[in-house]
């Protein structure tokens, strides 16, 4: 592997900032493909021929087509593909690489972020609310902790992708990425169990009898959802129940 080409700091910063809008043109046809080209563009100006040159335009055209990934790990793709372009990897090989990348990036990101980090931070905030933390505190805790992880992941992704190029699979195997979801799941379980009764009290207010009945109803409801509605979505059932209640209130 050749030495990684050096990009000026401002260019790297611009790519990093553009990552936050990577899903700006998300659609069912090209998904976040356009965003990949958009984020990569400042780096492509360093191709032979410069901005608007033949190599630049060919690369832009290649990368604005269909691509999918987890938004926070899309930086890995942006970095790795930019590195491949700057290293002059043949177009056919880049295409093959583009085909193989989305799956693992989606899978790792979905497990780490959507199925672990986000719900973990959410139940942490619920627990803080349940313990009586103030409004600003709960908001700061949730937005702060979540984004400390999310921004770090984005920054790591672009560095790792650009540093490794086509060998990026090695970094996706990093122990922290592989094992974090299981640790977070256990942490989430502990915090969620703790938060549930306390947050429920936070909403209902004082009164022990009603709270006990509510918690019992919630547990029975959760068990029923898990048992009978594994494939359906609870939020739709919640909406249906509340709609029924509202209709009752109207026609009574």
């Amino acid at each position: 592997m050749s030495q990684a080409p050096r990009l000026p700091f401002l260019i790297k910063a611009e790519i990093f900032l553009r990552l936050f809008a990577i899903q700006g043109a998300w659609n069912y046809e090209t998904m976040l493909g356009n965003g990949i080209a958009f984020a990569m563009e400042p780096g492509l100006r360093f191709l032979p021929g410069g901005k608007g040159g033949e190599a630049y335009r060919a690369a832009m055209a290649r990368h604005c087509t269909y691509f999918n990934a987890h938004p926070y790990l899309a930086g890995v793709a942006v970095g790795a593909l930019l590195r491949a372009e700057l290293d002059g990897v043949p177009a056919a090989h880049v295409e093959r690489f583009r085909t193989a990348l989305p799956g693992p990036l989606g899978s790792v990101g979905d497990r780490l972020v959507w199925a672990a980090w986000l719900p973990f931070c959410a139940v942490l905030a619920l627990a803080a609310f349940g313990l009586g933390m103030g409004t600003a505190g709960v908001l700061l805790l949730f937005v702060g902790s979540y984004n400390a992880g999310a921004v770090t992941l984005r920054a790591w992704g672009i560095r790792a992708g650009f540093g490794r190029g086509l060998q990026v699979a090695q970094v996706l195997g990093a122990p922290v990425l592989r094992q974090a979801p299981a640790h977070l799941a256990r942490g989430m379980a502990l915090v969620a169990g703790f938060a549930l009764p306390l947050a429920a009290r936070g909403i209902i207010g004082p009164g022990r009898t009603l709270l006990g009945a509510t918690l019992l109803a919630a547990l029975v409801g959760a068990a029923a959802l898990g048992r009978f509605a594994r494939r359906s979505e609870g939020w739709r059932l919640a909406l249906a129940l509340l709609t029924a209640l509202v209709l009752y209130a109207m026609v009574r």
Partner: protein
Amino acid sequence: MAVELFRIDDRLIHGQVVVGWGQPLDIQRIVMVDDAVAASEWERELYRMGVPEEMSVEFLTVDAALAALDAILADARRTIVLTGDVETMRRLVAGSAGRITTVNIGGLHHRSGRAPCLRYVYLTPEEREGLQAIESLGVTVTAQDVPVCDPVPLSDVLASTGA
């Protein structure tokens, strides 16, 4: 039978497969059937990274998968068999002598030459024929991206034109 799903998905291993189907169905193993990936070490390594540690993954060519089909079906681990395109699945079904009874279309995305059917299914004329060929072998073919959505029968998929 512990194969929960025979799935065609051009993204192969990704979040919808590993989390979307993997969690509710408690999937323990993925068998990816793809001649090109089975022959390419860096691609195998990349896809392996997308699989959680508690799941195992195997990469097979079509011929190897057919040779091992009885063992795959008899295995107690809950499994998803994945192909990245219609033709690979058609070859698999054709060689299975009736052992594959359902096929799931999980995602075939926009590419030049493909026309939209569903928001996650775009097909070329050859792919339409390939899916019909699979169905004509007595296999139930439906499109369904994630478990919470309803499966769409192939006839409805082929009749739709809106993404």
